[in-house]
């Protein structure tokens, strides 16, 4: 099993550009998450989804959008990149409730210049 796959691994954007971070999981997990990790900090939740067609905001959603058209895929969209969005982005998935451990992708390092 591939687990959670994130692409790309690294990206440099100019201010104002847009891009989509891809996330796919092959474990048939219902719950999927996007976190960001700023230097010296823990991960903070951007958006999450509890199933196909259902998404909701986390702690830091401003400047991002998501969609969940299939169980497997959960892309994160940055519409107008800003320097404050320079971070490492992690996608994660889990079966759902009951303290199920989240499985993480390898992360995407994104720099906005």
């Amino acid at each position, binding site marked *: 099993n591939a687990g959670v796959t994130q692409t790309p691994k690294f990206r440099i954007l100019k201010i104002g550009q847009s891009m989509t971070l891809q996330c796919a999981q092959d474990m048939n997990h219902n719950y999927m998450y996007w976190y960001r990790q700023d230097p*010296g900090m*823990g*991960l903070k*939740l951007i958006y999450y989804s509890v199933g196909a067609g259902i998404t909701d905001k986390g702690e830091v959603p401003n400047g991002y959008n998501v969609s969940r058209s299939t169980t497997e895929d959960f892309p994160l969209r940055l519409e107008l990149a800003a320097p404050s969005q320079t971070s*490492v982005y992690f996608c994660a998935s*889990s079966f759902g409730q009951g*303290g199920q451990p*989240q*499985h993480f992708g390898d992360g995407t*390092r994104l720099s906005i210049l």
Partner: protein
Amino acid sequence: AQTVTQSQPEMSVQEAETVTLSCTYDTSESDYYLFWYKQPPSRQMILVIRQEAYKQQNATENRFSVNFQKAAKSFSLKISDSQLGDAAMYFCASQINFGNEKLTFGTGTRLTIIP
């Protein structure tokens, strides 16, 4: 709101020795879970150990064990027989068994293993 605090930004330990990483948390919920995740330089987030709050017994996974003090809201990680491969950032996290099941992370402890 959930909060997780790791008061030790950095720790170091001699290879083969034992080290304890501290974590305190705050929650008003009664049904929750606690985790330790390891993040090596490769950036992966690797689950180390999981504790169910309703279980009094401390979780163990090989050389890793926790000291879960529910009343004190403390959840420390003990690493025995430290190995060079244990060098990493360690994050403590809490998860409420309700709703989105999101993880709330601490700021991490960087562990260095001294050969």
